[in-house]
């Protein structure tokens, strides 16, 4: 990555900001137009006392809509989220946060494909060769990953093999004091992965979660099995895990951590630089989504660079409009970077004020 001067970076930041504001106007116009918008937002607009299409001209103006509420996504009817313009299209529903109670649902038509194709552009061909097959070992079921990683593989000309893991079952086992069963289940998942890795020489790319990566690398050298790149995500990742994976687990196999979720899309990891000391830094796929770090006590206030706060997501696609959603994560705010001239986040982790019990599972 060529060095970007401060002036160049500033120019890129301003250009990106202009694109973001224009994108906000376009998306707000779409979602609040009775011809194209979804029932939820059209109904919501009736109580606002203003026409968002007139009043919201910039990204900052989204504050007029207040915070997006978690419970809006729990329960049905889920069709109220489908934009009228897409009523006749095949609709997917993906879930998040379903370990206990009603999960949050998000509808999808093409977004997962668009997000993962954009992410694909950030992957180096040497480590994730075009035409190579992939193996996905991790949660599928109602999650976006079920289709997204497969689409990524197909988009790059490969075929995706799958090994499923049900994290809700693992959490249930651990909460009910059955760690041995959880361990057996993990072994069952890892065994299936090893069979596929040994049987299919063209599998050169792997998607898995941090814990499963550890478990697989305990059994085999991924490098010796021909794996060239690992795309890792799905759960919290610490700088120490990042370092451990690079220095000890992977023998030089490319490691790409990601932060993604069903609601936002997929954030790209900043290329690893020595000065970042294995911090895991992500940038959202602007302008389709933005991540901010806000003061937990005053969520209207974005914290300073390097300061810690609660993660706030905004999703701005034609399929899904989710302004200013306070995520159950915290992080440090990261300044714009040459490739990604907008705010990023450093070392995302569960929001400490919510952390009463942490169940560490195989997921």
């Amino acid at each position, binding site marked *: 990555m060529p060095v970007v001067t401060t002036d160049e970076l500033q120019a890129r930041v301003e250009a990106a900001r202009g694109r973001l504001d224009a994108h906000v106007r376009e998306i707000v116009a779409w979602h609040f137009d009775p011809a194209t918008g979804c029932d939820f937002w059209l109904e919501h607009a009736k109580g606002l006392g203003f026409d968002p299409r007139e009043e919201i001209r910039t990204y900052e103006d989204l504050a007029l809509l207040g915070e997006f509420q978690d419970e809006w996504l729990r329960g049905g009817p889920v069709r109220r989220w489908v934009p009228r313009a897409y009523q006749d299209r095949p609709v997917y529903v993906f879930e998040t946060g379903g370990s206990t109670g009603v999960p949050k649902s998000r509808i999808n038509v093409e977004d997962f494909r668009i997000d993962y194709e954009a992410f694909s552009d950030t992957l180096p061909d040497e480590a994730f060769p075009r035409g190579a097959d992939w193996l996905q070992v991790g949660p599928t079921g109602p999650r976006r990953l079920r289709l997204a990683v497969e689409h990524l593989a197909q988009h790059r000309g490969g075929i995706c093999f799958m090994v499923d893991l049900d994290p809700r079952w693992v959490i249930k086992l651990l909460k009910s*004091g059955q*760690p041995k069963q959880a361990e057996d289940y993990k072994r069952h998942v890892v065994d299936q992965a090893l069979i596929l890795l040994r049987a299919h020489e063209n599998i050169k790319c792997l998607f898995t979660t*941090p*814990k499963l990566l*550890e478990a697989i*690398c*305990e059994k085999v050298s991924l490098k010796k099995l021909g794996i060239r790149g690992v795309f890792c995500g799905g759960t919290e990742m*610490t*700088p*120490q*895990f990042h*370092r*451990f994976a690079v220095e*000890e*687990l992977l023998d030089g196999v490319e490691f790409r951590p990601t932060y993604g979720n069903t609601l936002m899309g997929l954030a790209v990891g900043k290329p690893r630089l020595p000065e970042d*000391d*294995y911090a895991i830094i992500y940038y959202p796929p602007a302008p389709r989504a933005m991540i901010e770090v806000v003061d937990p006590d005053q969520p209207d206030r974005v914290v300073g660079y390097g300061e810690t706060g609660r993660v706030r997501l905004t999703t701005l696609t034609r399929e899904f409009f989710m302004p200013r959603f306070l995520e159950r994560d915290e992080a440090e705010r990261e300044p714009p970077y040459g490739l990604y001239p907008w705010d990023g986040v450093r070392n995302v982790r569960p929001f400490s004020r919510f952390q009463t019990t942490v169940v*560490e599972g195989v997921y």
Partner: protein
Amino acid sequence: MLHIPLLRKGKEYKSLDAVRVAHHRTREPFVEISQANVGLVRRDLNEQESARRTLAAFTTDELIALSERAAKIFAGDELPVGDAAQTPEDYVAQVSATTCLPFVMARRNMEKVRGVMAEMRTVLNGLTRNLPFDALDRGYGEVAGQTVSFFPRALSLGVVLPSNSPGVHTLWTPSVALKTPLVLKPGGAEPWTPYRVAQAFIKAGAPREAFSYYPTSHAGAGEILLRTGRGMVFGDAGSTSQWRDDARVEVHGPGYSKIVFGEDCADDWEKYLDVIAASVLDNGGRSCVNASGVWTPAHAEEIAASLAERFASVSPRADDDEGAQLAPFADPRVAARISAIIDEGLALGGARDVTAELRGGGSRVAEWGGCAYLLPQPLRAPLRAPRLPARCGRMKDEDSLDHGGRGADVLRELPARQRPGG
């Protein structure tokens, strides 16, 4: 700030994940401790034979001599703690800073650890019932005319340690002389002693590969016990319950030790008063062997009154006061919470705080030097008194006496208050 790294088969490793532990009095961060991620622990423990081989290359006699040298070094030398140097007095002050133990107790525990290391020959004779040491070296020998064989059943000993008192570290030090490498998970507030003992052994000539030291999470601790052939775990009933049926793991804790008078001794209770008071109060009541109850078939009132009188003179003192008998609570709310639980139990009737009268109705929680202390006191209760738990029903017509200080049975209901082994 001081940083304590991991030891991965003796090699220092500074983790990117570290926790800071505060000084109990200033509440300022005092030490940063590297944390091992679970995968790292698991990966290291995949290969345990090389460390075992390094110790197996010594004879038992050589390792006993090495332990004796290590004892002197532990008690007298400057040793590394991360990148810094630690004198014995630094060690005492550091233990005190994070565990709340007064210096005098930290020093006493240090001496205890030193003593076991220095007397390793005697200790091993006791553990092996005088098995000739060459049997440990050759794998066979003769005892009372019978041929016996010796076969190590583990490649290493995993130890999940507590923070309550450094005295517990005496329990695993014989592992070195028994040629068994150590995999230690220190208590969150007491990282000092296992690290210093390991450094003392290394300086005395032990192979550094034999010492692994992993401050880590609960999950990491579990991996240590799962993956080492033999283990020790210290903790409360909740954290040790999953290991109780595992024959490989020796469980220490949660304590609740008792003094029980037989009918033949109860009339001589005065002869035992010193022992009772010491059993309750020594080491600030922090050890699992501190008595949390006295059960007697007679004279409970007199015993209670005499203990109350002795305990009434115990008061908080400075950390470096040689006469200090109490350790404060790092979190003052814990002292208040324990006191409230005692009050709840007393309110149910049938039991009485005997020291309350001597305290003139004052609180059993004392604030001193910015810290909270729970003053020791006997709680007088009949055997069947409600909510003063752990009373055994086998003694007839007895009175029973519980002291409600650090070691009171009522602590059993406090998940946050552990008095693991030692």
